[in-house]
């Protein structure tokens, strides 16, 4: 099957690229249409689910990346010993929770829910690579914040929708009267 070869090509591509890669870019590199690329990605993802595979596909909207499956603790422990995991401070935990469940979200909403100006803690999380920002349609300085795939990697999740009780908290703002 021609598709099989494309799946191999996709694997090679993600392996070398390492970082999150857009499906649009993948389509271009594999010389296929975007819809086809999405299909190839989906098949690749389902094959990774097999027990003899050590890798998982991570997704953030239209960007994908491969990473080791979280269940291989021995592997991770052996290799990640050097990694120093800081405790999350109350401010970091508050902000990350809001950004993770409600993101992409503007700073005004984060400030509103936390009751504090969040510019410093957001900058701190951006610097640590746990949070990313995207320019929203409203203009260059109206950023929206979302958690990074790196942050999800720390939690052992392949996408933010896997967060516990995602739906429940995602709709929390709409269930209250907010401006």
């Amino acid at each position, binding site marked *: 099957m021609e598709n099989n070869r494309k799946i191999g090509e996709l694997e090679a591509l993600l392996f070398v690229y*390492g970082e999150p890669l857009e499906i649009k870019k993948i389509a271009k590199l594999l010389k296929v249409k975007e819809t086809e690329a999405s299909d190839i990605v989906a098949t690749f993802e389902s094959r990774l689910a097999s027990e003899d595979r050590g890798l998982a596909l991570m997704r953030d909207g239209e960007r994908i990346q491969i990473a080791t499956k979280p*269940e291989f603790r021995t592997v*991770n422990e052996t290799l990640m010993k050097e990694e120093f995991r800081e405790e999350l*401070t109350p401010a970091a*935990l508050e902000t990350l929770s809001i950004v993770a*469940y409600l993101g992409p979200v503007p700073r005004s909403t984060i400030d*509103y829910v936390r*009751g*504090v*100006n969040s510019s410093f803690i957001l900058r701190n999380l951006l610097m640590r690579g746990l949070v990313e920002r995207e320019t929203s349609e409203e203009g260059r300085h109206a950023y929206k914040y979302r958690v990074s795939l790196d942050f999800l990697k720390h939690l052992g999740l392949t996408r933010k929708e896997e967060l516990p009780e995602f739906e429940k908290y995602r709709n929390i703002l709409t269930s209250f009267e907010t401006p």
Partner: protein
Amino acid sequence: MTYELALNEYKGPLDKLLELVEEKKLEITRVSLSEVTADFLDYLKKMEAEKTNHGLIADFLAVASRLILIKSKTLLPALELSAEEESDIKNLEARLKIYAELKGAQKNIKSLWNEQQVMATREFLSGMEAVFYPPEGISKEDLAPALERILEELQRFLKPVETIKIEVINLKAKIEDILKKLEGKPMGLRGLRNENSRSELVVLFLAILHMIKEELIHVEQETHFAEIQIARK
């Protein structure tokens, strides 16, 4: 970056407020918020005494001013609140409820974070040799403007701290200002305001509250709808 460090270690104002409400085993209502106002102000005072950073104190002040509004309304039911003040109070209740709900989300994140189930990824072009691919059309003049952009943003980011500092220092200045204005003659609350900014109102409320506690001033309201008169003792 002491500001950042301080910000990281302290609880935010809503977190503190929620803690106070839950300590008394109360629901989040206007009445319960009124009941914890004194405790919240005590905590704020403690923060000031500990010289907690100005930014965080300003955030606490903003919540404190709303609590004071709620408290005043409970003590003086005839007190007319403006539409803006009324919505501020509703807002605080709603925010605290949302905050309380999101505590569960925080718990989820915290436990996953502490589980240390890390997934590992590879570096970009790992194991490959660097190749010199200069961007076309770049010149030495392009670098400084890029730096200017960053420096501008950095400056804009650092500026609010200065503004907040000034606002907080204002509290002490405001007390002196009010005492001076009250020299000899009592005044209405409105007469004490110089500008119409929201931050000034917050500071004014707190200054008056502080002075009542220190027994520096005397507050009176002749009829229900009359303006509150403030005089020096």
